[in-house]
């Protein structure tokens, strides 16, 4: 085992431990990840930590503002906002009927697929939502949900820049902690 391998191993361990600590410290935060794919293995991940949650007697509503979503490149963020016409349609709104959901109990997580109504780019379409919910301490429920959508269903033109286009299929993942529900 030469010095280079030892040094590599050291940094690997440090990075794994560091990332683990960061992940644990963010356990209580909300996050939205929008994953789009392009040619040659291109992955574009847009991230935001802003999710508004509302509930009423019949449904749960999740609202994600478009403007704070960041992809890691300022210009790409601008293209994202332009493609989604964020000034005109500032948020994506998912509404899921309570009757579609199974709610978790103490030590009994719930997971499944529910039909929701997604409003994006000013158009509303039914979508399948995969979810997992786990009740934690102090009545806080950890929710993980994901939606696969096709931009064409919402009349969004697939972003294309200098000959590189992303596929119209997009995956949106949400992690959040909900009090009550």
């Amino acid at each position: 085992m030469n010095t280079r391998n030892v040094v590599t191993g050291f940094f690997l361990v440090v990075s794994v431990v560091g990332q683990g600590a960061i992940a644990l410290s963010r356990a209580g935060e909300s996050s939205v990840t929008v994953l789009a794919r392009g040619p040659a293995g291109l992955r574009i991940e847009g991230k935001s930590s802003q999710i508004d949650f509302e509930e009423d007697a019949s449904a749960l509503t999740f609202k994600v503002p478009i403007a704070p979503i960041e992809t890691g490149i300022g210009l790409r963020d601008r293209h994202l906002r332009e493609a989604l016409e964020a000034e005109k349609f500032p948020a994506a709104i998912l509404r899921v009927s309570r009757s579609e959901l199974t709610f978790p109990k103490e030590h009994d997580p719930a997971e499944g697929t529910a039909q929701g109504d997604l409003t994006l780019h000013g158009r509303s379409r039914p979508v399948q939502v995969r979810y997992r919910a786990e009740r934690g301490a102090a009545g806080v429920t950890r929710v993980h949900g994901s939606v696969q959508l096709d931009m064409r269903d919402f009349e969004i033109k697939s972003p294309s820049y200098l000959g590189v286009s992303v596929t119209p299929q997009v995956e949106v993942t949400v992690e959040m902690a909900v009090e009550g529900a």
Partner: protein
Amino acid sequence: MKAALFVLAAVGLISTAANAFPTMIRHGYTGCAACHTDPSGGTLLTEYGRAQSELLLSTRWGAAKEAEPSAASKFLLGAVSPPEALTLGGWVGAAGLHLERGRRQAGRRPRAADAHLPCRGAAPRPAARGGRARLRQRQVGAHTPEFTTGRCGDRLCQRGVRER
């Protein structure tokens, strides 16, 4: 659990260096063909690759965060716009080969220097005889927005590392 630890240790300790930019992987570019005309990467960049080079790898003095790439990212600083189906580029490479034969120094033999228009790439390639570095690249490249690439000439040999 032991097996998993063994695999983790093996990956960490026995792995070799990757000839890629980890920074680009961090930005989601896990393959080369998004930015390079050669699917295995290196040398000639597509128009998109030129833009990403400026956006992600260059220091953009004074440019707004969401600004488009400057003319510096374009072919001939944007003075000429080649057809979309044709990618042109140029660069200059320089390398030297230093040999010693016994006590007598054979001397430095700077080789390199190539400018391309529209040829792709050039790289010194150590030859077996005489210790001379030779340039062995002549390529003409074109690509379409659909990433089909057509080339002719020698195989890309980047900095003498790759073999045909």
